[in-house]
């Protein structure tokens, strides 16, 4: 599903090049639950962003379902990721000015899903996550765990093949965290590929494979 060859990412400010990722080779098969671990500043989030096509590498090749991502136009990228990839962030990133219902609706609108179908899907999600009563609340009226549940619901509402989670439990208490992780596991068991970034050994244990990132290099433990 994912094939990365010699992916490198650096930022140059003035004459100084700061390397964030160096020669990353990575293969991810469909249905995997992969965990990326490493200390702060190791390049975990950058790798995740490149995987999610939110950022582009400075050099190297990236194939997503055999499509050369590094050669696609912005439009094609946008198409690819809006149909196949869901994102979950540490700080949820819900749109503050939209209600729970409207937040769930937004990706469907961008995918041009028809009105009746949209309603059905949102209702299904609300039901599945026990959020029916909260559908008209705004994000700041919810607890962190509830917000993250909405974020997960929003990520999977388009039935993505791949979910990218950037420290999904970082801002949550233990109970909420467990709930979210159980959710991801359940999704993985349903066939969705999941790649998560985390500091927590406990969270990493949900995954079946772990790669370690230190100073931009993949290192074997």
């Amino acid at each position, binding site marked *: 599903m994912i094939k990365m060859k010699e992916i490198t990412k650096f930022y140059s400010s003035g004459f100084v090049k700061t390397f964030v990722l160096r020669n990353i080779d990575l293969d991810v098969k469909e249905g995997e639950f992969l965990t990326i671990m490493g200390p702060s500043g190791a390049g975990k*989030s*950058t790798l995740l*962003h490149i995987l*999610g096509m*939110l*950022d582009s590498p400075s050099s190297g090749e990236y194939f997503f379902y055999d499509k050369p991502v590094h050669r696609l136009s*912005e*439009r094609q990228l*946008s198409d690819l*990721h*809006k*149909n196949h990839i869901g*994102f979950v*962030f540490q700080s949820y*990133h*819900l*749109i*503050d*000015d*939209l209600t729970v219902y*409207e937040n769930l*609706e*937004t*990706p469907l*609108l*961008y*995918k041009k899903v028809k009105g009746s179908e949209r309603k059905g899907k949102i209702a299904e999600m609300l039901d599945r996550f026990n959020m029916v009563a909260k559908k008209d609340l705004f994000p700041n009226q919810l607890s962190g765990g509830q917000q993250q549940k909405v974020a997960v619901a*929003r990520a999977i509402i*388009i039935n993505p093949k791949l979910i990218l989670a950037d420290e999904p439990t970082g801002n949550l208490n233990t109970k909420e965290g467990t709930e979210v992780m159980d959710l991801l596991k359940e999704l993985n068991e349903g066939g969705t590929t999941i790649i998560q970034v985390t500091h927590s050994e406990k969270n990493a244990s949900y995954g079946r494979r772990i790669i370690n990132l230190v100073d931009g290099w993949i290192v074997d433990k």
Partner: protein
Amino acid sequence: MFKNYVKIAARNLYKQKAYSLINIFGLAIAIAFCILILLFVRDEVTHDSFHKKADRLYRVIILKKQDDGSMQSHAMTPPPLGPALKEEFPEVAHMARFKKRGDVVVYQGKSFRESITLAEPDFFKMFSFPLIYGDPQTILQDRNSVVLREEVAKNYFGDEDPIGKILSIKMGSRFYDFTVSGIAGNIPGNSSITFDFLVSFDRVKDYTPASQLNQWLGFTTLTFIELQGNVIAADLEQKFPGFIKKYMGQDIEKYLKGDYSAFQMDLQPLEDIYLNTRISSSYQSGSNPIYSYILSGIAFLILIIAAINYMNLAIARSTIRLREIGVRKVLGASRKKLMHQFLGESLFFSFISLSVGIVLAELFLPAFNNFAGKTLSIQYLSDWTTLSSLVVLMLFVGFSSGSYPALFLSSFRPAEVFRSHLRIGGKSKFSKGLVVVQFILSVFLIICTLIMTQQLSYLQNRNLGFKGEQVVIMPTHGSAQGTLLVDRFRNELASFADVKAVAGSVQSLGNDRTYIASPVRFEKKQVMSHYFLIDYDFLETVGLQIVEGRDFLKEFTADPKESVIVNESLVNEMGWDSASGKKIKTFMGRKDPLTVVGVVKDFHFESLHNQIKPAIFYIEPRWQQEYIYVKISPVNIPSSLRLLEDMWKKNAPNFPFMYSFLDDEFQKLYRAEKRWSTIIRYSSFFAILISCLGLFGLSALSIARRTKEIGIRKVLGASVQGLASMMSLDFLKLVIFANVLSWPLAYYVMSRWLRSFAFRIDIKLGVFLLAAVIAAAIALLTVGLQAVKAAVANPVESLRYE
């Protein structure tokens, strides 16, 4: 999707009240301004287009060859021209000659000065003036009928039925009875042709000798024609040289040595009349189209300033919205979609601003009408152009203010947004550039205001060479006893201490419509000169100084026959060392030359746009005095005026008592300049207001962005004063920079404007410095208050959030 955008826009609007208020208020003021200007301009350009046959109606104009060979257009045509055209050319469907005169109307013993219009029977067939009562086919055929405008009828007869009432109207030297037999509806505000009292053209015979009415070289009458539907004006115009030869040939041979190129005839489309100021001598004052251009320009500038506010605030606020943009991109929004969203938002804002702007425009409309001398109104539904221009205005504001933020905000890559805390807005060069543009425009308008005000006050305070504030001028309304009336006033007022002097004159000083310009010849030299036909004591009454020789005196009995007084300009032009005793030839019916007996010190008898021209003064007993001049004492002015009125009622009961002060007559010459200075003053006020609104919003956001920096600096020991000035200085620099850029522009435009005055102020550096100080002070006040507030705040508060 659309619903989603609207929701976000509405919630944002509600959540960010101050920001929304600044944007909407600024845009609304600008839009209101534009609506008013658009109304004005549309009224100007659609003058006379309300006539159903407007495209077939023409005014015949005559081009006369000038001394330098150029052709000057005149609206006045020979009286026999109209009937001859109608007879000669079947292409002419209808013809109407038209004349206007100010004269006296008496009803139930009361007299009024009114404007009387003479027109031919075809008048109502050609023009679409509504008749409320009367038969348009026949109404102007009856010599004794008069048609009144509805409003005028109401003034005279109140609620009584005006039809059949008798009015006594003076035509020339006699009063005639007229029966009211028609009532015309009110004339649209954008009509060049207006009338209050309309009588048959035949009445022209009452005050004009038949010889003049058949005179082909006398240009006294307006001629309008209506062409047949299928006739092209240019085709008819080609036949005019032959026409001139046939009808004017005899005169041209006799008086102009057969120079057939001396005259040319043209057809001027009716709709062209109002904005064509090159054609002289006409009854209605046209309007220079340049006014419309300048006003549109100003409205556009103000709109730009308001749009810049929107842009700048949207960019500055983007920090807050970056996360939303990032999330939307993650969720699959393409750049195009995001641009749609932000454009949609700006359109939403511009829609609300338009609604508020319309309300503001309606509120200001009465004041604006009053000031522009128009009766404009916003017709929302009856007229599709209004609605469509409002929509266009909204789209323009929406797109011009939303396009850059849309491009800018949609360009962020989500990874950048999430990774780092991007700091933008207020700091970007583009934003700064926009603020500079706003202040260039504002400072430009401030400088124009200052210079125009200075020039106007210079015009008002310049010594004109006489003292006008105590001189009362009363028109005799063409009374056949004008000279007699002056003498009676002189004799009867002699015993009153408050009356200093009384004199008569044919001209009204300051009113150049009464002036006569004609050559004066001395030996071989000929000089164009103004002729003032005056009376004994005139120079004294007006307060003119004799610098050589003497005034006209009763004891010199030959004065009315052979003496003349000239002004210094004429002496200079003639190149005389001494004027006394020089014999000059005039061309106004005097065969014998006149002898100069005195020289009067130069004084301004025209507006200060013009240099003082040569002038001569002499007594012409054959002409009736048209104006009575009375110099009164500066104390007891009301009682002096009452005295004059009583005297008037006793001596001229059939004529209305009207008066004006000489200095007011001269002030009237600057009406256009005053109007312009007011327009520019208001514009600069709004420009600076809207600019400051933007600056306020921008500085608030910039300061909010720097809260943490301020906290850290405070912890490190910065003083409140130091912090406040640090933050204000950033903006102050922009304003000062804008000033420097604005100065040359303002200097150029204002020196062009001043060049139209022969007498003008010098543009001094002080004006520019003052404008800079004003702009800087206002900007500092706007920014400084917030800066101080931020600087005073407890640093612990601002750092806690980290």
